[in-house]
């Protein structure tokens, strides 16, 4: 049985002109990248465009990818920056300060009452302030790799851990409130 090529191998193969190798990388990460974009932007079309933009930028600057780095961290960082650009453009065009929560949806108490566990958790994550929401989304995508999350966000690892801790505290509170509202 042949072992799956690593992301690093696929990058090398792409740089040697193998288009299929990059297609495999897209297959591996398009869903996660879209997830990050959608969770950050909360808009299907913008998330779609940000995902495309991220892969396009990655493809164009593949030569700058350091072999010792993780491709997932690299592509997530590109995606995160693309999303930040879009958010700041939104802020620019709206003419006023963006609220800490980027999505204008109502708070958890007004949300649909009957939610299953996953939907409830997702709704609670959506209700978090943007900085916490992004950290939780990256924690979801990358697991307990705090260093990788810090690299993507360009923040010190301590800050990431603090954000994650506070995010979890807020999640617990929000989930509790939802439970009370439902009952």
């Amino acid at each position: 049985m042949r072992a799956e090529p690593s992301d690093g191998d696929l990058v090398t193969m792409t740089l040697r002109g193998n288009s299929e190798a990059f297609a495999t990388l897209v297959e591996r990460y398009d869903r996660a990248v879209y997830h990050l974009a959608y969770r950050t932007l909360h808009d299907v079309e913008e998330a779609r465009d940000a995902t495309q933009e991220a892969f396009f930028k990655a493809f164009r600057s593949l030569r700058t990818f350091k072999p010792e780095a993780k491709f997932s961290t690299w592509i997530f960082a590109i995606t995160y920056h693309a999303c930040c650009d879009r958010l700041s453009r939104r802020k620019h065009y709206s003419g006023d300060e963006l609220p800490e929560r980027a999505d204008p949806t109502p708070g958890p108490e007004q949300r649909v009452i009957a939610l299953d566990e996953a939907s409830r958790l997702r709704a609670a994550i959506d209700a978090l302030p943007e900085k916490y929401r992004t950290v939780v989304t990256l924690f979801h995508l990358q697991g307990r790799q705090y260093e990788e999350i810090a690299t993507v966000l360009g923040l010190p690892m301590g800050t990431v851990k603090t954000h994650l801790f506070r995010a979890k505290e807020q999640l617990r509170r929000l989930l509790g409130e939802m439970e009370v509202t439902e009952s």
Partner: protein
Amino acid sequence: MNMDDRYGADALERAILELPLEETPEGLRASILMATAYRPAPAFSFFELAVVGSLGAVALWLIVLLVMGGGSLFVHTLATIGAGLSRALSNPAILAWIAAGGATALWVSLFTGSQPAVAASRRSERRAGR
């Protein structure tokens, strides 16, 4: 089960990690691939475009020249250049010099063609070994 059990630190982390990813919109992967790995190669390379552009510019210049009545001057210039070339090529001494120059270039490329590359690699090896 109370809230603290259900949303304890570990349970909450597990729940976050187990959340399903968002479904990608239809056609997203195809559009990414069409913009990157499977992007059709351009019909002309930069060099080809430059050559075609230059030829186009020369053709346009000629047309403008002919339309403005400068055709006879152009023909005269071409005839002068052609006459000069034919005179040069019919001179045995010039032909001999061209032949000698060509032969020398061929000889130099046959015997010493790979020298610069070898020298360069030796130089870099020496630098690395330093």
